């Protein structure tokens, strides 16, 4: 692997960039691996990377039915945060943020984690009480958080609506300074390059069509490129987790929904933070390229169609116009949708699947991107050791029969 650095970039610039090697290979699948990861998105690639890096298991294949990073990893609004209420969630997501903080250097690939902070605004007295509850929870969970008053919010978001006719005037908010955005594709590519460099085979255009089981244990997969056997299998197939589960004869507590995202034409910097205004159902930030990156809630119709629907567009974009009236005149460039796994408690599922030899990392809902390194780390741990990491144990499927749901929405009113 040629190291990326200012120096190599300078050198290659002088010679027309002819010396850069492939970021990853395109190998043909081998008949057997020590471990197979289904899904070449962020979580799958991170799993393979950490299997190789943390557990020295390098005979690993990542099977991707399309192009790597083409699922939700390449379709999200790039927010990275850990502003969670419950200790279990906070520990999990903050682990993700911490891994992100070092990820560019770990991978030798600039994933542009921009810790510009995220503000969740409060718009009423009741919101402020909940904001206090949230801020205190975060701080007790060891996550950075500040409770902002109205002026402090407006200082950070000068364009915010302060007109007297604003339906939901800003009262204050919760700031997580370490939250921010990352370059989503770069996360997938950086992980792919680093995993590949450690010997992992990343096999694109290889669709898993079934599981090979022997004596009740999963020992391999059927794919569009033929059967591949493996010692252990992990699935990280957000949006399609139920499809994979059906192949294994399982049902998951997951419903798939389309989640839309929007980007505007590029603008000179107008917005320095990530802002979620819950009563408007909208959040946005500004990318380094200058586009406003806008997101909101789920479409209301369960869907595997990777395209958005007008009612939610109206809600989200109207929300943005209300949050910052000056942006109403900005033009929308593109909108698209990803398919997300939604669990009853909006928390992920990490753990054994119910089929021996098959582990799951799914159910991240709208929050998968921020957890890519954490999800990969934990699935790799499970696959390598056969046991839970302490951070993933609460997120096992057994929480459903025991009733031990981790329902952030129920507790804190925080949108996922």
């Amino acid at each position, binding site marked *: 692997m040629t190291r990326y650095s200012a120096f190599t970039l300078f050198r290659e610039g002088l010679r027309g960039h002819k010396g850069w090697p492939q970021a990853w290979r395109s190998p043909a699948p081998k008949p057997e691996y020590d471990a197979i990861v289904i899904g070449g998105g962020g979580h799958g690639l991170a799993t393979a990377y950490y299997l190789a890096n943390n557990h020295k298991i390098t005979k690993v294949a990542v099977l991707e039915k399309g192009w790597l990073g083409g699922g939700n990893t390449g379709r999200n609004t790039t927010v990275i945060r850990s502003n969670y209420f419950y200790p279990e969630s906070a520990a999990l997501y903050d682990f993700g943020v911490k891994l992100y903080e070092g990820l560019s250097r770990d991978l030798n690939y600039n994933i542009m984690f921009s810790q510009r902070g995220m503000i969740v605004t409060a718009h*009423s*007295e009741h919101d402020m009480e909940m904001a206090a509850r949230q801020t205190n929870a975060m701080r007790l969970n060891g996550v950075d958080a500040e409770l902002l008053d109205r002026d402090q919010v407006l200082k950070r978001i000068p364009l915010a609506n302060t007109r*007297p*006719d*604003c*339906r939901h*005037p800003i*009262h204050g908010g919760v700031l997580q300074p370490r939250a921010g955005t990352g370059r989503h594709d770069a996360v997938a590519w950086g992980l792919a390059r680093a995993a590949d460099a450690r010997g992992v085979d990343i096999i694109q255009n290889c669709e898993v069509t079934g599981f090979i089981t022997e004596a009740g244990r999963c020992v391999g997969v059927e794919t569009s490129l033929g059967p591949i056997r493996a010692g252990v299998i992990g699935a990280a197939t957000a949006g399609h987790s139920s499809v994979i589960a059906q192949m294994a004869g399982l049902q998951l507590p997951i419903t798939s929904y389309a989640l839309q995202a929007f980007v505007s034409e590029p603008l000179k910097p107008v917005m320095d933070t990530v802002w979620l205004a819950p009563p408007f159902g909208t959040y946005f930030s500004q990318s380094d390229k200058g586009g406003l990156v806008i997101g909101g809630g789920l479409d209301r119709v369960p869907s595997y169609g990777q395209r958005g629907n007008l009612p939610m567009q109206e809600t989200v974009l109207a929300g943005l116009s209300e949050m910052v009236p000056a942006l109403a005149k900005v033009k929308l460039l593109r909108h698209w949708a990803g398919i997300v796994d939604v669990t009853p408690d909006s928390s992920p599922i990490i753990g054994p699947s119910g089929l021996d030899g098959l582990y799951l990392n799914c159910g991240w809902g709208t929050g998968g991107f921020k957890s890519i390194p954490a999800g990969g780390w934990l699935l790799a741990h499970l696959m390598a050791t056969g046991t839970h990491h302490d951070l993933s144990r609460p997120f096992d499927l057994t929480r459903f029969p025991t009733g031990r749901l981790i329902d952030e929405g129920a507790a804190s009113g925080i949108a996922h």
Partner: protein
Amino acid sequence: MRDDTALWDAPRDPAAPIDLGKAKLTRVQLTRQTLVSGPNVLQQTDLPLVDWPGAAPAGAYAAILRRDRVLLVNAPEAPDGWNDTAQQATSDVTDAYTVFDLTGDALPFLQRGAEITPDIPSRSVARLLFGLGVFLYRLDDGTTYRLHVPRAHAEALIQHFEKAASHT
């Protein structure tokens, strides 16, 4: 503790007709509105049944809300509660819905609030308009649209129509 009184327009006197330019919104004071539900209520009522787009007569009629529910308009008073003989539940809701007649070039106003056309009939007059639950049908003059909106949303409906008027 925030005083938001000024954020909200004071509700208009609903008795005064509202000029929408190409259309007019007039408050209708009905004698009575009665919810009647029952497994056979559509067969049992002897009042004219009104659906969408419908043609409501001047006197009493029964607007169909569901497969087992009608809203009786200007029907004789009936006791609230369960009528075991008729197998019907009855509730007086006269004050629950504010009623307007929309006259003039009405359809463009309605089409701002929903995908709506008189060309596609419906057995029920219940629908969402501007996101508000309403009962909507035509009178038998063929041009007047009658709207029942939950009283608490009457002001919002007026504002929606006024906003539409600014664009028509």
